[in-house]
């Protein structure tokens, strides 16, 4: 499972940076090595030298590699108690008084959190006028999100989660099967804006009400976590909510003066004035 050493992993990171200018040095090493080993196994590549050569020579392979090395967004409705809280408490408070507030999902990979919120908004009705947007690393990932493919294990986990979130309702109403594969219905993303990462000067605007950044930081090393958190909190306006993964902790970065904790259990925070 860990057939790639730290030294070899760092060589791959340097190769990619040198060839494409993509900096992966902020990734958490243990899970990066695990994914590297898996990619090499599924691509039938025997050594990291061969992997480095293939990455340098084959841009299409490189783009697939970036997509594979980027961990998918969590399954839909992962941590159902969070989604129940959003539906019953946070969204009514946050969205009702505003016109077209924005909810952002940075660094999306599969878009499953985005789809979850789209489902939730469809279910709670027309009173809510919300702009949903997501960012992603490259066009291949964007196309993947837009396609809405839901592989079986994602479907099963998402369905199980949804049934806790909304017992008695049918998750399959939001999916369709085409040529034997299951997809999320395209209308869920109607009006949703998906853009490439780094094309904005600032991620957030005055309209941004909530930033979803769940289970993204676990794939970053501590230095990268600090940089991302500082940047995101710096971008947010006062009052913007910020949601991280249930097992992600942000209190150790010396940035506590920038946010208030809304729910320590569900990891919901709110930006406050720095003073």
């Amino acid at each position, binding site marked *: 499972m*860990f057939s790639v050493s730290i030294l070899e992993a760092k060589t791959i990171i340097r190769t990619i940076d040198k060839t494409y200018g993509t900096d992966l040095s902020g990734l958490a090493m243990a899970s990066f090595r695990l994914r590297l080993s898996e990619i090499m196994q599924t691509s039938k590549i025997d050594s990291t030298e061969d992997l480095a050569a293939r990455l340098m020579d084959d841009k299409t392979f490189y783009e697939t590699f970036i997509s594979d090395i980027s961990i*998918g967004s969590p399954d839909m409705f992962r941590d*159902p108690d969070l989604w129940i809280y959003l539906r019953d408490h946070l969204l009514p408070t946050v969205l009702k008084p505003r016109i077209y507030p924005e909810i952002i999902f940075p660094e999306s990979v599969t878009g499953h959190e985005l789809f979850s919120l789209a489902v939730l908004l469809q279910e709670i009705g027309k009173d809510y006028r919300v702009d949903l947007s997501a960012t992603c690393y490259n066009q291949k990932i964007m196309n993947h999100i837009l396609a809405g493919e839901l592989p079986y294990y994602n479907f099963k986990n998402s369905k199980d989660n949804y049934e806790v979130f909304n017992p008695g309702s049918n998750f399959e109403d939001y999916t369709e099967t085409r040529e034997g594969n299951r997809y999320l219905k395209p209308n869920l993303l109607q009006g949703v804006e998906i853009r490439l990462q780094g094309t904005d000067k600032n991620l957030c605007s005055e309209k941004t009400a909530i930033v979803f950044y769940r289970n993204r930081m676990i794939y970053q090393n501590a230095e990268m976590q600090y940089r991302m958190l500082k940047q995101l909190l710096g971008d947010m306006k006062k009052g913007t909510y910020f949601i991280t993964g249930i*097992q992600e902790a942000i209190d150790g970065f010396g940035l506590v003066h920038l946010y208030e904790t809304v729910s320590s259990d569900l990891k919901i925070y709110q930006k406050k004035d720095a003073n």
Partner: protein
Amino acid sequence: MPTKAIVIGGSAGSFQIVIRILELFRPNLPIPVFLCLHRLKQVRKGFEETLNYNASLPVREPFDKENIRPGKIYLAPSNYHLLIERDLSIALSTEHPVLHSRPSIDVCFSSAADVYGEGLLAILLSGANQDGTQGVAAVKKNGGAVVVQDPDDCEISTMCESAIKLTKPDQILTVSNIIEFVSLL
């Protein structure tokens, strides 16, 4: 080589044994223990509390990047893989399940083997699938020690049988022998 860390993996039929093991660790155990147990993915609460009830050492579901301390028992959180970084911190992951399991014993054991090498002791208990087989192999490959519950003594023997088929453990023990073994650590 002294033991630097213990990993315990189990699934169906292992819960009662784990409870008994956790009662036995001496309060000044100078090493960390990692518990990777298959559990319901939508139920976040109750498991940690139940394990803590009679445990001699604190059991906690760690946060990502948490520094690993001796004398603590780290329980893989529901629906996360638990890995260990070389700087002795916890690394969690939501990567897809391995053999339908998240947390995966294979992932946890392999990661611990990579970090602790010869200093790792792995204990594999009763379970209903083949998760743990690759993990046990990784522990042995890296020089660690492996104890597997005797399949004849398991409530469900699939997990231990599968591991033994691929890797020769250092010891195959019944529950009572495992309990005795742990009490001597």
